[in-house]
């Protein structure tokens, strides 16, 4: 059988999968694969955004009343925290590109920390607080007032959307941990940074989802 076609082990770096002809093709495939996956995520969150838009159109006063029950300062802080983690992630990708392992690990750790801060603020200061305020649908929701059913609908959306987003954050933090372990073992030294770049795309996407969630949930109809 002709061996020339299949690159021999010498020019066959460990991270080049057998079915790709060269590293360029593998990287492009990885990036395109992640972007296509992010499109499926846009549609996945899209189902909830569509439902939110319809009910906001139908019950605007109720949604505005529901939105005012949320603390906007925690939302703003969380947005800033997440944008910060996007910065550290971008810097992590950059240091991976330049092959600086220590900086890469440092920025990845920073990204995880900021992610955990976001989840901490979300869980301790918002969800627990809402639970005590009886604002969690299905767990003793009661908010007597004119728009009671519409407010409950709003909180259904609030918990579904932020819950799904938090789930994606947890998965992202898990990915970062794996990357740190691999980086520590020097897997990304030889200029092979595609896994970092792809995880970065995922993380930035989760940040973009929150960039839309924050105004739609916290600022709908204004705070005056």
């Amino acid at each position, binding site marked *: 059988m002709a061996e020339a076609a299949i690159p021999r082990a010498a020019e066959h770096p460990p991270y080049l999968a057998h079915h790709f002809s060269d*590293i360029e093709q593998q*990287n*492009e495939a990885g*990036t*395109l694969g992640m*972007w*296509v996956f*992010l*499109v499926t995520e*846009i*549609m996945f969150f*899209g*189902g909830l*955004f*569509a439902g939110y*838009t*319809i009910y906001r*159109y*139908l019950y605007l006063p109720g949604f505005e009343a529901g939105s005012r029950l949320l603390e*906007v300062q925690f*939302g*703003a802080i969380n*947005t*800033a925290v997440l*944008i*910060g983690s*996007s*910065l550290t*992630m*971008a*810097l992590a990708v*950059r240091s991976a*590109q*330049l092959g600086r392992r220590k900086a890469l690990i440092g920025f990845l750790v920073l990204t995880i920390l900021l992610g955990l801060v976001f989840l901490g603020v979300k869980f301790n200061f918002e969800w627990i607080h809402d639970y005590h305020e009886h604002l969690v649908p299905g767990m003793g929701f009661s908010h007597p007032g004119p728009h009671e059913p519409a407010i409950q609908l709003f909180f259904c959306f609030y918990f579904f959307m932020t819950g799904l987003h938090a789930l994606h954050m947890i998965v992202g933090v898990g990915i970062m941990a794996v990357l740190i372990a691999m980086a520590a073992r020097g897997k990304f030294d030889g*200029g092979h*940074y595609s896994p970092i*770049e792809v995880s*970065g*795309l995922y993380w*930035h*996407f989760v*940040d*973009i989802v929150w*960039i*839309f969630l*924050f*105004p*739609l949930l*916290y*600022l*709908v*109809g*204004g*705070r*005056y």
Partner: protein
Amino acid sequence: MTGHVVPVRVYVGIFLALLVLTGLTTGVAFVDLGPWNTVAALAIAGVKMMLVALFFMHLRWSSSLTRIVVLAGFFWLAILIAFTLTDVGTRYWSPTPQGWTAPTPAPAAQR
């Protein structure tokens, strides 16, 4: 063999811009602009998304195929929302907007 490396100051610049925009959108929410509040909030969120996508996600330096994929994602989301709104939005338009007239009294009532 590295992809496009972006200088740190560009990243930090984008980061600060995003923080400013977050502050802006929160601030604008405290000003009563009526329906314009929603438009402002979404516009600012759109600008922030473009910043993150173009610079942090390197969309600005990536192939046109990737850009088409991203646009397709948002276009399909727009299809879902727009077509559902065509139903919800026009549901209570009664086909004949003229008023209602009492039914001719049923035959029994005449006798």
